[in-house]
């Protein structure tokens, strides 16, 4: 029996047997997790069916404006999530949202203007999702680190300010450290790709029957765009952090 490249609904239903196995195993081991497991599985199915329906509608009727709107919503949500990691930083939400937006816009604009990817909703939305989530991660790491550095290194920062350095110069060593930390996950993922991990885009294409040598072309583009998204978002977050951490008189604000 040969299965289709993509499972049909009966296949999906059959795969629920796996959930049952996990739930049974949990019950036998008295982990008291069976219920949670089943709820999670049902929840995943409901969420994905809903997203699938929305995306289908979006691709059919939304056109490019719909795709752009979808990406904009993702950027706003990602900004909120990243800002939560930077609690105490003044105007964290605005900074995080702008940083994610810059990483996303810069990367997508480059990809589309160089005609690397198609300017079509069914391409832009999934690619945009990858870009936004990477930009979100880099933004959250950058802002959290910058907030910690500003709080912990106040004496050093004020020593530099007291010598007449600009706020940006006084904070530059900390900005550098924060951006470096934020980019480590992206750089490391890029280094080991294919060796340790077979990433999602490539896996998906191979599963759908695309020749691996073709599938890696997409993956190379994906890795490059994720690097760019992370870097753009981290640099933007760091740049904006200068503006919110210091006031007009180049004083480090109180962080709470």
């Amino acid at each position, binding site marked *: 029996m040969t299965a289709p490249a993509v499972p049909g609904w009966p296949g999906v239903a059959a795969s629920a047997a796996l959930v049952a196995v996990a739930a049974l195993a949990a019950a036998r081991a008295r982990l008291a997790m069976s219920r949670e497991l089943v709820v999670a599985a049902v929840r995943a199915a409901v969420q994905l069916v809903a997203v699938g329906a929305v995306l289908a509608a979006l691709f059919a009727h939304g056109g490019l404006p719909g795709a752009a709107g979808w990406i904009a919503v993702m950027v706003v949500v990602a900004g909120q999530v990243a800002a939560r990691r930077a609690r105490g930083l003044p105007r964290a939400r605005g900074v995080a949202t702008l940083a994610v937006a810059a990483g996303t816009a810069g990367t997508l604009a480059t990809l589309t203007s160089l005609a690397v990817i198609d300017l079509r909703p069914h391409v832009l939305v999934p690619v945009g999702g990858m870009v936004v989530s990477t930009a979100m991660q880099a933004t959250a790491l950058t802002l959290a680190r910058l907030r910690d550095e500003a709080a912990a290194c106040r004496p050093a920062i004020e020593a530099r300010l*007291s010598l007449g350095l600009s706020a940006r110069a006084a904070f530059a060593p900390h900005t550098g450290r924060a951006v470096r930390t934020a980019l480590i996950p992206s750089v490391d993922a890029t280094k080991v790709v294919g060796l340790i991990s077979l990433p999602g885009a490539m896996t998906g294409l191979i599963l759908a029957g695309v020749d691996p040598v073709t599938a890696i072309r997409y993956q190379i583009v994906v890795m490059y765009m994720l690097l760019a998204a992370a870097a753009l978002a981290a640099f933007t977050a760091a740049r904006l952090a200068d503006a919110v951490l210091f006031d007009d*008189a180049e004083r480090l604000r109180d962080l709470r």
Partner: protein
Amino acid sequence: MIAVVGFVLDQVSVRKGAVQILSEVSAQIPAAMCTAVVGPSGAGKSTLLRLLNRLEEPDTGRVLLDGTPLPAYDVRALRRRVGLVAQRPTLLTEDVAAELRVGRPDLVRHRAVEVLARVGLDESFLDRATSGLSGGEAQRVCLARALAVDPQALLLDEPTSALDGVSARAINRTITDFVADGGTAVLVSHHLDQALRISGFALVLRAGRLVECGEPGSLDYPGTAA
């Protein structure tokens, strides 16, 4: 009594959250002299000092330097003119030579040696790693780092409180020399007798209020009477 006015505090109040740090402080800090700022801890001494180079901003009232409100100066130029040495030495670079250039990137070697000499350290310190300095040496390097910028005024926040006698005396000598050359020094200190010995003027703060000011020998503050 006061020849030239350096800083003027005019009805200055500072509040941090629910805490009133300074309440309507009006005072003059004479130029070309060392002024001691004394009082119990929590009196607002450090905040007063930090107002003078705009690391703090008054909520109400104003601070003037040479008759001009501080916000009228470019803040970076002001901070180069009014150096600050904090209580605990904070070194920013790997070695002493780099440390002296933080605020003065164009500092040439013989000028760096001169600056070190002003704090009682010899040329061999230039190539020393900052991580290997003792607390006293580190504080003297911080003072030299401030002097390298050629400030007209020095703000010193308990600069000798954590130091051995040798380093404390060296720093006091540096302050005395700085004032003798026409510089204005403002010294916050717990070492009352030491601070007052090198000061020609003193402000006494208590609970955020100025309670006394004048020549050190004329004050009622415990331990300040000659």
